[in-house]
């Protein structure tokens, strides 16, 4: 698992790999000894497939993996009142 995270980090940091061709990606993955099923998931560019293969999950928002968390409310004016109510 850690070599695939290292691989992703390396792509994210490398100007040549960031938009590499399929064949260059394959060569790099083989050199890094990434398992064939993970190679497939990476080449498909499908984060859900990758998460499943890695057993990573993000329960945020109880939706599918790879969704983004909400972190903001539309009107935060009454937040303190809410806290007081919660703590009462």
């Amino acid at each position, binding site marked *: 698992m850690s070599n695939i*995270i290292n691989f992703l980090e390396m792509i994210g940091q490398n100007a040549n790999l960031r938009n590499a061709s399929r064949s260059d990606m394959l060569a790099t993955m083989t050199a890094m000894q990434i398992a064939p099923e993970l190679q497939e998931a990476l080449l498909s*560019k499908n984060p859900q497939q*990758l998460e499943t293969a890695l057993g990573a999950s993000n329960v945020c928002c109880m939706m599918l993996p790879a969704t*983004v968390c*909400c*972190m*903001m409310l539309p009107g935060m004016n009454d937040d303190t009142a809410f806290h007081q109510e919660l703590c009462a």
Partner: protein
Amino acid sequence: MNAERPTGSLVNVGLGMTLGSHISPLSRSHIEQADVVFANLSDGIVELWLQQMNADVRSLQPLYQEGKSRMQTYWQMVETIMAEVRAGKRVCGAFYGHPGVFAWAPHKTIEMARSEGFEAHMEPGISAEDCLYADLGIDPGNFGCQHFEASQLLFYQRRIDPTAYLILWQVGLVGDQSLTRFSTGPAYRELLVEVLAREYPLTHEVIIYRCATLPIQQPRMERITLGDLPKADIGMPDTVVVPPVRALQPDTVMRARLAELDLAAANDAG
């Protein structure tokens, strides 16, 4: 008498949007040196990446539950983080993007930690906004750029400037007054379109934008008409960009007054 500062501390950092590409060296160092790291990230793979930087990474994700008020979730995040700060730990909050952009808990925890005498600050990160300017080739200085949490346009009477860019955040859950849902739907976006249609024709082109969170992805940049927004596929990570519809209107009065000033300055100099 010198009141001693309590030992706990807090720093909230941003990992940026794309795994590996955006994190700053300083943010990474804060993560590596923390006693405990709390995480609120965009996906599970990014969380695995974070786990490689510190042995004690705790996800805040399980606090989210459908049907539970997000306000309650956010306060629980604050209390969870503050408990470790109060216990004297060196705490780091790791958030995707920029920790202070459309994110309430990072600001609140810093405010609270400071008010209790702890050292606390924020390190910026690369936000969805930053990626949007790069991917869509928009310079916010050209016409100006206004950012709104989409629901605010429905809950409050806001004034939109149609000569500037309009960026709408959290469109995927627009209009959720209950604060308990994680997506709304076409009927809610219809109302958003109704508000926007006061300024823009339904044929106006808008862009659904989603930047890459993994370096193997490409950004989503889908151009549709405003009228088609309700039936479009819009999820939590999508941001909607509405380009200006009208040209900037010259302010002839101000220009004349500026010319007078220039003239007066020239006369003084002469």
